[in-house]
Structure formats: C-alpha cells, structure tokens
C-alpha cells in the first residue's frame, strides 16, 4: 500500500505502510494479502456480477468468463489473467459486451496487481477507467482509482502516485480508504523527497484525520518537517502532539524522531530547544512498556482484520505498522544504554552552551538513577569537570568519593581523586589536598596523572613552607617518572623551593643544573630569572644585573618582568648607577599595580635620598593627581609634605590641597590617613588644626560635600578626644547620618558607633555596628563591631545572642585585641548557664594565649577556680586562686576574691590551717584593710580554730593551675 520514502533510511524511517518492504521480505505474504483484498472485494459482488455476465453472453463467453472467475476466486491469478485476457481479446470489440468486458478488465487489473505486474495493471486500470461511465460500476472505479496510484508508487512513479492518492482523497470524502489515501499521498511525496510538500499536505488534512491515521500522519509530518529543515514547525508539532503520545501506536518511532529533531536543532545552534526536545524522550523502560502495550492492541486489531476480507487494505496497513513497531522495539531493546545516551546528549548540549551547572545536574541524575555502565562511568568524569567549572567544590569532593565507591577499579579513578584534591585546595584545605595528591601518586604510579599529582603535592607543601618535604618530592620525581614532562618542571622546582626557603646559593646551583639538563625546558625562562633573583638576594649584583637584563630582553612583560625590573633597579642603585636604575623603574607598567606603585615609591626614595627635591615633589604630586584611589596616596603626601619640612605652612598646604580636591570622593581611600598625617606636621598646634578642621568641615557641609565634611569632623574628633572627650563624642554622634556603610571608612563607622554606644544610644549604635560588620568582612574594625554587638546583647540580657557574637569574635578575629575579652565574657556567660565544660574550654584557650592581658588572665583564673570549686576540685581551684595573687597581685579587684575563695577552698578540704594562713595573709595586706573582703577574712579567722587543723590529704600543696 505504500513505500518508504527514498533518501537516507539509516537514521529514522518512520513510514508506516511498507508494502514494498514487506513484499521484499515475504512476497508470499504480500501476495496473499493482495489476493485476500481482491477476494474481499469480490466476495460482496462477484456472484451477482458473474450471473449478469453469464446471462448476456454466449456459451463461449460463459466458459471463458467462468474459467477466469474461478481462477480468480481460487487465487490462481496467472490463470485468471490468461482467461480474462482471452475474454477481453475475443469480446472487447463485440457489440453488447462492453459491460461484462469492463468487469472482466476490472478483475484482470486486480489479478495483475496481485501478480505485482504493476505496469500491465496500470494499463488495464487506465483502459478500465477510460471506459464509458455507463459500462462500469462506480464502486469498481473507486477501487481502481485507489490501486492505480499504488501501482505508480510501486513503480517508483511517486509523482503520479501522489497525484492519484490526492485525487482519490478529494473524490471520495466518504470512502473508508480516504485516510489511507491521505497518508499515502504523503508517503508518495516523501518517496520523491518532497518533504516540504508532504509536510504542507499533511498539515492541510490533519484536522480531517482521526484515530490511527492521524497518529501515522503525525509521524510522517514530523519526519517531513525535520527533513525539510522546518525545525520550528517540527517543535510546534511536537508541542501540540506530545500530550497525546499515549495514543501513538509508534511511540518508539516518535521518540527516535525527537532525537533526530534535537540533532537538527543543535546543528542549527539552537541547543536550548534541542535539550528541551530531548527532555521529552521517555525512559527506555517506559517506552518499551508503552510500545508493547500498543503492539498488543495492534495485534488484537490484526486478528480482527484477518477475519474481515473486506478490510484487506487495512490489514496490510496494520501489518506494515506492526513490522515497523517490531523493528523499533527490537532496536530499543538492543540499546541498554539508551537512557544514559539520551541524558548524556542533553548534558553535552548544555556543555556546548557553557551551562555546566545544568549539565552537572543532568549527569548527576544519571549517576544516581541509572545502573552502573561504561557510559555512566565516563559521564561521572564529565560531571566532576562540570562541577569544577561551576566551582561547586564540596560536591566534587562528595562525588569523587561516590565515584571511588561505585567504580573502584575504574581507570578514571585517579582523575576523580585528582579533582577532589584540587577542590580541597580551592577550599583552602591544603593538608587534605596534599594527602590526596600523595595517594594518587602512590596508588596509581603508572597512571598519567601520577606525576602531576606528586608534583602538586610538592607544590602545596612548598606553599605551606614545608620546604624540606617539598624538596624531597621534587628530587624524587625525575627518578620516578624519567620520561614524563613533569620531570622537567620538578627539577626546576627543586631550585625554586630552595630559593623560597632562602637558600640562594644552593638554589643557584640547582637551577644551573636544571639549565644544563633541560637547555630548552619548559621552565627555561623562569630558571633564568630565579638564578638572577638569587644572585640579587646574595647581593652579587655584577651577576644579577646582566642576568636580569638578559631575562628582560627575552621577557619584557608580565609580573616576573615587573619584579625583575625592581630587582634590576635595586642592583643599579647598589652599584651607584642611579640613572640606569631610574630608567628601569620607569618601564614598570601600571597594569602590574603593586609593582608599579613600588617602582614609583622607589623612584621617590632615590629623589629623596639624593635631595632632588623638585623632582621628588613633581613625582609625588603626579602620583596623587593620577592615582587618587591608591592606598598609598597618604604615603605620597607624607613625603610630599616632608619635602617642605623647612616650611610647615607649605607642607600643610600640600595636604589641604589634596584633602580639598580628593576628599569628597569616597573611592579615594587614604584620605583618612592624610588627615591623621596632618596632625604630625611640626610644629603641631592642635587648637589651630582643630579650628581649621571645623571651618573646612562647615564649608564642605555648606557645599554639600558631605563625605568630606564627615571625614573632617571625624579627624577633628580624633584630634580633641584626648583633651575633650565629650566634645569628640558629640561631634561623632552628629555625623551618624552621614555614614554610608558601603563606602565610609570602617574606622569612622566604628568611632561613630562607639560614640553612640558611650552615650547610651545603644539601638542606633547596634545598627551601625551591624553595618560595620556586614560591610567590612576583612577590616580590622569588624572585630570591634562584633565585640560591641556581643556586649550590647549581653547588657540587654540576651545571653544566646551575646554568645553568638562572642563566638564570631573568637572565630573571625582570633588575634584581635577583642578576642581575649570575648573569650572571658563568653566563658562567664557559659558558666552562668551551667555550661562549665564549654566555659573551661574558652578559659583554657584564653590562658594559653601569650597576648592575653594580665588583668584578663587574673579574671579568667578566678573564674576558672570558681568553676573547679563548683565541681569539687578544690585543690586545682586553689592553684588558680593562688596564681592570681602570686602572679597578678597588681589587680586588686581579682586579688581579694582570689584570696577569700582560696581560703574557703582550703576550708572545704578540711585544711583549716592553710585556710587560716591564707586569711591572715590577706588580712595583713594594708591596701585591703578597710574593704568588705578584709572584714570577711577577719570574721573567718574568728570562726576558725587558732591552731588550725591540717588535713593530711590536702596539706596545702595545690595542684598545678591551668
């Protein structure tokens, strides 16, 4: 009934009716189907027609026609053809036989069809159709008008076939074959590779089709659109038809077309629609289940059709679909990796789009949901790389472990571990990273990554300043991996590590060995530079100058080049070749900001040392003018002011000039330092300076230059806070509305908040401290903000909040001046909350710190003693207390309780003699005599027996204090 379209059939051939294919595979089956079709046609009509023929012809005619009909009905089509041809030849021109001859021709045509004699069949059909209308039956005409294009289709005359089916479709709107004709029209067009026409035609008849024909048409239309390159229409068709996929008999064909569409979309750089199309493809299990269900339904339908001779055409059609489904199913069953491949394809498209996150999520679902297979193993590697690209370090670490567990024997395991080590390094966990690199090198010595892993381990150790271990690794590498390119780099790094360790002489020797061993090595230039660098470090300028010059001749740009210029200039200066040095410094490019500024200030230093004052001033003024956001502007101004050291007024003028011009831009860091520097210009007159700051602040305020006004007022508060703290406080408070936490210098923010805090305006102070902490995560002032927030919470009685802030001080500002106080206050809160274990942990930490102030240590020891005494450990408690009055006797507020509690602890131990002695010792201290504590001691002495009572178990040898 139809043919597969010509063209590339290897990818996806969705054509649903495949007579030609079926015939080729099973001619008998095809022939049989055709016979049944005609038999069916005859079954309803032949008896009456035969009688009609017989009644009107002579005996001869009756004999021949009977023989023809008998042959036809018995399926002997060659005999039928012979008899019917004879009849037509003998009676074709005999008057009065036109009707029976036409009927015979009809049967002859059908017999020829069954014999696949398509050309002859066409001739007979055409002759039949050319007969006068009154001689032929309308139903016969309809029948042959359907078979005619089919014959054309079989003969490869697809254009005529398409026209014929289209004609049939138009002429017989009520025909049961109309839908088939519509679908076959498209098949014929596709055979002729008229994809556009087929798609347009199917689109035009889509609404008139229903049931299986509609579903077949969808498959053909999708195929046509894809082949025609009309991908956006194909996408629309998919969007419209996908929700009814459960009704599609050929779900696998449909899915294959989705893959083809996605491929086409991707080729058109429409990867998004490609992945969206691939997403529609159901899992292999789902597809197989659904397709088998559809197949079962189809097989039931075929069984019914087998019993219906009048539906032979439908039977053939259904069998064609079944063949196609069988093939699809087999192909899908034979693809156990189908799901993995589809998801991998989706992920690949996302990777093409640079969307590693989406790719990673897809690949991860593969790893999680699908059974273990080689595709997944490979995909896991891609997954790790995708997460690496997105910077999801914790996930890489986690997944590398999953990979190691699922694929312990995988060849890719070293690569997975390598990425894990890299991720650990990204998270600053260098020790763990180095350990994984070491594991790779040890467990997989033959893997290509082993040298890189070992090198990375050495590199990390060198970074951690574990030079000896790093050096041992680099020294061992050439022996372990003599043929690996990393041996070259490792040899260079032997010298470089020695250089980093400050062993310049050994470094030079090792680097020279490298140059000999690897004259064209990948580290040739770095080695050249490092040798020069180490000669410079050894002050061997006669060596370093030519070497650095030679290096710069080869490598004139980059950080190494800029650093080399600084060294070279230093070398020249050391040799007294000032101008050569200055010339070199001028070549440091601004792009290497840190080196550039360093070069600028080295130049200034030379001008200063050589008293080239005018050049110095011009040079520094140039810097202030051109790099106002630099953190070194204050330094430049300082030296600019210094250049006017004989003329303080001029020096101040220089400062004021910079402050006035640059001070209102918050981006110009360093203005605060310039303002503080103003105070140091001799002869300093704080009153005059304070007055000038006030006047200029008022002027700035009037001019709407609020940033400048804030800075000036803050500077004035700094100036007067020693002599007029109240004035300083109110001045700062008055500036609180000018603070922009995102841009204001954190020192100003913290000082204003402190002023509010001291003034009791705690709510506003807390808000500003919070801003200080939020906007300045790496500023030293953050510790102040955190400590004050803790204090505020503590004062407000919110112990939980206070503890949280204290913990942040301890974690985030471990070496700040606020840390030890935070440790003590947190310990106090914990002690009050009966969390003595945690309190003791903090106190231990506090007492171990060398930076802890003595007063804080004294307070900590008293608290420590109290906690131990609460636990009944009086001996250790006494040791703590004694340590206070022995070592920190200066701090009376801690000494008094330490004595009293020490004595009480002795009493608790039953050692009244030691208790008495301790009370006496304290009571004898003159400075405490009028205090409550002294009176308490006196009362205790009156209570205790005069001689005391020593407890041998506690005779006053307290255990060591913490």
């Amino acid at each position, binding site marked *: 009934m139809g043919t597969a379209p010509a063209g590339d059939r290897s990818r996806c051939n969705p054509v649903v009716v495949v007579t030609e294919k079926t015939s080729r595979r099973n001619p008998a089956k095809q022939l049989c189907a055709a016979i049944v079709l005609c038999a069916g046609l005859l079954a309803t009509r032949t008896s009456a027609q035969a009688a009609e023929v017989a009644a009107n012809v002579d005996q001869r005619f009756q004999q021949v026609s009977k023989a023809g009909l008998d042959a036809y009905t018995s399926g002997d089509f060659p005999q039928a053809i012979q008899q019917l041809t004879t009849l037509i030849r003998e009676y074709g021109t005999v008057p009065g036989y036109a009707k029976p001859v036409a009927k015979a021709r009809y049967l002859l045509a059908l017999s020829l069809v069954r014999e696949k004699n398509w050309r002859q069949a066409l001739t007979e059909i055409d002759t039949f159709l050319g007969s006068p209308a009154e001689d032929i039956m309308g139903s016969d005409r309809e029948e042959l008008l359907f078979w005619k294009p089919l014959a054309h289709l079989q003969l490869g005359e697809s254009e005529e076939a398409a026209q014929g089916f289209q004609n049939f479709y138009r002429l017989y709107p009520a025909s049961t074959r109309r839908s088939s004709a519509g679908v076959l029209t498209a098949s014929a067009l596709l055979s002729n590779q008229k994809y556009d026409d087929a798609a347009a035609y199917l689109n035009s008849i889509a609404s008139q089709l229903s049931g299986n024909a509609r579903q077949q048409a969808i498959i053909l239309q999708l195929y046509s659109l894809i082949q025609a390159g009309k991908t956006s229409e194909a996408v629309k068709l998919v969007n419209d038809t*996908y*929700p009814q996929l459960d009704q599609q008999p050929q779900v696998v064909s449909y899915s294959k077309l989705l893959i083809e569409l996605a491929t086409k979309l991707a080729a058109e750089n429409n990867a*998004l629609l490609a992945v969206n199309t691939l997403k*529609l493809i159901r899992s292999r299990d789902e597809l197989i289940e659904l397709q088998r269900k559809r197949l079962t339904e189809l097989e039931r339908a075929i069984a019914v059709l087998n019993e219906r001779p009048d539906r032979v055409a439908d039977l053939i059609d259904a069998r064609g679909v079944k063949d196609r489904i069988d093939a699809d199913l087999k192909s899908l069953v034979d693809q156990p990796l189908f799901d993995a491949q589809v998801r991998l394809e*989706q992920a690949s498209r996302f990777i093409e789009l640079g969307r590693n*996150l*989406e790719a990673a999520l*897809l690949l991860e679902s593969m790893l999680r949901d699908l059974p273990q297979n080689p595709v997944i193993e490979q995909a896991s590697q891609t997954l790790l790389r995708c997460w690496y690209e997105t910077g999801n370090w914790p996930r890489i670490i986690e997944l590398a472990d999953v990979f190691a567990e699922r694929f312990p024997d995988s060849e890719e395991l070293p690569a997975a571990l390598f990425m894990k080590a890299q991720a650990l390094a990204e998270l600053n966990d260098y020790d763990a990273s180095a350990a994984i690199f070491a594991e790779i090198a040890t467990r997989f010595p033959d893997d290509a990554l082993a040298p890189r892993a070992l090198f990375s381990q050495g590199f990390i150790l060198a970074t951690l300043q574990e030079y000896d271990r790093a050096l041992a690794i680099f020294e061992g590498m050439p022996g372990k991996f003599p043929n690996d390119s990393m041996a070259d780099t490792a040899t260079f790094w032997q010298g470089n590590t020695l250089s980093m360790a400050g062993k310049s002489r050994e470094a030079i020797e090792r680097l020279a060995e490298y140059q000999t061993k690897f004259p064209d090595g990948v580290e040739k230039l770095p080695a050249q530079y490092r040798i020069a660098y180490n000669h410079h470090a050894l002050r061997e300028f006669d060596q370093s100058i030519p070497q650095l010059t030679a290096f710069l001749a080869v490598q004139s740009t980059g950080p190494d080049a800029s650093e080399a210029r600084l060294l070279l200039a230093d070398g020249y200066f050391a040799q007294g070749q000032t101008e050569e040095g200055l010339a070199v410094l001028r070549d440091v490019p601004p792009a290497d900001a840190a080196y550039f500024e360093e070069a600028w200030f080295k130049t200034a230093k030379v001008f200063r040392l050589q008293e080239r004052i005018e050049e110095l001033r011009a040079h520094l003024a140039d810097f202030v003018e051109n790099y106002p956001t630099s953190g070194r502007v204050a330094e430049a101004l300082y030296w600019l002011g210094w250049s006017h050291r004989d003329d303080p007024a001029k020096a101040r003028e220089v400062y004021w000039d910079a402050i006035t011009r640059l001070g209102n831009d918050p981006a110009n860091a360093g203005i605060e330092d310039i303002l503080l520097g103003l105070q140091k210009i001799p002869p300093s007159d704080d009153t005059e300076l304070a007055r000038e700051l006030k006047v200029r602040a008022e002027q700035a305020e009037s001019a709407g230059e609020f940033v400048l006004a804030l800075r000036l007022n803050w500077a004035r508060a700094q100036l007067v806070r020693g002599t007029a703290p109240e004035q300083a406080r109110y001045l700062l408070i008055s500036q609180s509305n000018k603070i922009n936490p995102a841009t204001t210098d954190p020192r100003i923010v913290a000082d204003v908040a402190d002023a509010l805090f001291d003034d009791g305006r705690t709510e506003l102070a807390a808000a500003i401290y919070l801003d200080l902490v939020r906007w*300045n*995560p790496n500023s030293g002032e953050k510790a102040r903000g955190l400590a004050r927030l803790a204090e505020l919470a503590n004062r407000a009685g919110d112990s939980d909040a206070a503890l949280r802030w204290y913990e942040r001080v301890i974690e985030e500002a471990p070496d700040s001046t606020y840390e030890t106080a935070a440790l003590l206050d947190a310990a106090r809160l914990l002690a009050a909350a009966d969390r003595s274990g945690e309190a003791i942990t903090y106190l231990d930490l506090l007492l171990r710190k060398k930076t802890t102030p003595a007063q804080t240590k004294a307070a900590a020891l008293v608290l420590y003693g109290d906690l131990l005494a609460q636990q009944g450990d009086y001996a250790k408690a006494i040791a703590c207390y004694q340590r206070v009055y022995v070592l920190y006797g200066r701090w009376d507020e801690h000494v008094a309780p330490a004595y009293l509690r020490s004595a009480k602890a002795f009493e608790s131990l039953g050692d009244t003699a030691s208790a008495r002695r301790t009370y006496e010792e304290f009571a004898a201290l003159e400075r405490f005599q009028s205090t409550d504590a002294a009176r308490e001691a006196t009362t205790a002495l009156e209570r205790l027996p005069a001689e005391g009572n020593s407890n041998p178990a506690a005779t006053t040898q307290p255990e060591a204090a913490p």
Partner: protein
Amino acid sequence: MIRRFLIILALPLALAARAKDTIELLDGEKITGTILAVRGTSLMLRRSLEGGTQAEFSLPVENIKSVTFDRGAKLFELLDQPTVPLPELERTWTAEQPFLALPGSPAGRAGLRMADQLVLSGERADAVKALGALDAIIARGPDDEIRIEAAALRPAALYFAGQPEKAVEAAREFSKLENTTPAQLSRARLVLGLAALGELETLVEENPRWREDARVKPRHDALKFSALEHFLHPFLFVRQAGDAEAAGLYYAARVSRMSGDTEAIERYHLDLTTLHPQSPYTNQTRDLLPTPPTPSTP
C-alpha cells in the same frame, strides 16, 4: 436493591430534578437519579419510584465505585482546557466541593486547578484559600491519585501562606513519597528552593560583601547551588512542565541575582522567552536584568 437504600422522603413529581446522574456501585449495578449532597459517609440521592413519585435516598459512599454526573462531562471538558479563568474555577469548586468524596466527581480537579492558580500568584491570601482547598482534597479526596496531587501542591501553598517552616517540612515529607511523578516532585522542590533562596537573600542582606568573606562564601555557594538545583528540576527533568518550569527559571534568575551573576540571569531570561514567551514569569525575569546603559546623547 431498594433494600440497600434508606428512603428519606417521598416527593411529588413536580419537585423532581431533571438531572440524570449515574452511580455505579461496587457490584456493577448502575443507578440513575439526582445526586443532592454527601452527608458524612452517605450520598443523598433523589430518584423516581414506580408511579412517578420522587424520593430521596441515602447510599453509603463506601459502596460506590464511580459517579457520573449529568453535568460532569461539561465540567471535565472545562477543566481540560489549557487555561480556565480563576473565577470560573472558584465557582466550580464551591459548587462541587460537597461531592468531593465521590469517585468521578469533578470537585477534586476543580479544586486542584484553582489551588494551582492561586498558589502561583504568590499572594498570601490566595495561598491561604488554596491551602483550604488542598487540605479538603487531602482529607476527602476520592482516591490516592488526587490526594497525592494535592499533597504535591500543599508545600507551596503553605510557603506562600506564610508558613515557610511547615512548608519545608511538608516538601521534605513529600519528597520521600514513592509513586510521585517528576512534575509533582518539582512542586515540592520549588518550595525547598524557595526556602534556600530565602536563606540566601538573608545571607546576602547580612553580608553584602560575601565574596570577600571567606567565612560566608562557602555558605553562600551551598545555598546558591541548593536553590538552583531545586528550581531547575522542572526545566531539566519534567516533560512539558509549563508554569512550574517557568517559575523555576524565574527563581533561578533570582538566585543568580543574589550572586551577581548577570550572565545567568540573561540565560534564564532567554530560556523563558524561548520556551514560555507568554508566561508572566518571563516579564518578571526581564525586570531582573541589569538596566541597559542609557545611550549617550551626542
């Protein structure tokens, strides 16, 4: 058969309703009449007796296999439309809610579609209304399928109703259920994503310079990846996910804004304009794009 019914009241013919609802009992028997109400565990039915008298009957709901309402076909047709105006859904839900427990009742479908629209508006009052419907469906829905569907929507309703902690708990519980579809799961994940986004927004608000803060950045990244993973679930895994996909992409753009990743916002906007050009989320995502520079005048 009549013995299985309790005749409540006989009525004159004039009061007879014209509707012909069909009730199929568990034993296959079919009864026609007019369903009046469901009271407790009983169905109230009006039907003709011999002689044309109308009578009300009570039938235990547990004996009913399915119910075909006379008006059902029309309602199901309405509910199958891709878009149904919210007021119409609300009217249908109100009218059909009494029959929610009956198998074959359109009430559950109407309630779910109404709740879906209400939840997606993101408004608290709407979410509260949606929650009421969903809880009713979970309590009285006729089968597991519809109850699971309601349970899938419930976390989002809770979230927008201002109960984020309960929402997250409900979403986590739902995620553990078996036999849920990817589409249902994506609704629960939307809530988990919203919770992560909320935490992320707070984190960024409290730490505007999180990039420079080694303490905060890992937490930021963890929340970002968690939120994105939840929000992108429909985009990556749910076929024809519709609004859920559009919502997910919009929220993914919100996450990206928190991270200052303007390229990602542009990508998600492009996804939305390509896949969901008509969705309100597309416009909302456009609003997240960085403002294009104003052309300078010569």
